[in-house]
């Protein structure tokens, strides 16, 4: 097993490796959020019975290793007025998907971009990008901007809007 510090430098590192039972307790204690008290890491430490220094050391390590993506506020985009959320899907040449995915993923109105497998002939698309806008017209306008960026590499695209949440349970990480 590679040391966890080496994983941080490798974006496509294998999953899991670096977390132990104490890390999992930190995850379980904070996945709903960080306590809003002046010394939140101390509060977490008290809850799980280790020192605050240990909570902070492990938290920094999980940040470096990409186990924690970021620490901060997660806005409810509906509450901020972003009511239209389009899953845009693109058929781009496989040998350029990484380069193009990075460009599209860095656009300020794209929250996530992914390379996913095609399922020809039913599903020709290999690049997904979540586009957020105040309404569908704004999403469509942004889709045209992505299409312009892609130029000839856009061999077909579509936008799927969510119309209904059929099920929503958060991802729960067991202790």
């Amino acid at each position: 097993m590679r040391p966890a510090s080496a994983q941080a430098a490798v974006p496509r590192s294998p999953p899991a490796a670096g977390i132990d039972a104490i890390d999992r307790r930190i995850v379980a204690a904070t996945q709903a959020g960080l306590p809003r008290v002046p010394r939140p890491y101390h509060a977490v430490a008290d809850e799980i019975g280790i020192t605050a220094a240990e909570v902070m050391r492990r938290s920094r390590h999980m940040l470096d290793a990409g186990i924690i993506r970021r620490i901060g506020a997660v806005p409810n985009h509906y509450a901020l007025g972003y009511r239209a959320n389009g899953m845009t899907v693109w058929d781009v040449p496989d040998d350029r998907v990484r380069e193009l995915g990075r460009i599209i993923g860095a656009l300020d109105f794209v929250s996530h971009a992914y390379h996913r497998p095609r399922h020809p002939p039913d599903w020709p698309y290999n690049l997904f990008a979540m586009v957020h806008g105040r309404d569908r017209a704004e999403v469509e306008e942004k889709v045209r901007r992505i299409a312009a960026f892609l130029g000839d590499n856009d061999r077909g695209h579509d936008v799927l809007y969510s119309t209904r949440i059929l099920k929503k349970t958060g991802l729960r990480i067991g202790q």
Partner: protein
Amino acid sequence: MDATDRKIVNALQGGFPVSERPYAEAATKLGIGEDDLIRRLDTLLSDGTLTRFGPMYHAERLGGALTLAAMRIPPQDFERVAETVNRFPEVAHNYARTHDFNMWFVLATETPERITEVIGEIERATGYRVYNMPKLEEFYVGLRFEA
């Protein structure tokens, strides 16, 4: 939500410190007091402007497996299939979308092997094909929603 709240939402979508007094540090940068920041975060969470405040974990790196899966269900059969699919505890969220591929759900399992098994079980239970669309690569920057 006033101008200070908007500053908080815009500035604190990442980079919150890991330190003794992180709220005090973040508050100083925003030009407000520690108490004020904590109180405003509490309000933004309770009124639903924020869904969470804290660390965002990378699910796969915690050891489980995730995938996105899609199905094409004829409208007359949609509700039955939705019910069947939702009964699987591995289905974390499920959305109806505007497309022939009209049902999209996330599968979360303890192990990668279990993903394949659950897909087979859903296909047998519903009679429809499940298209597995795991991410092959993620181009993640992290959206900054402007408040």
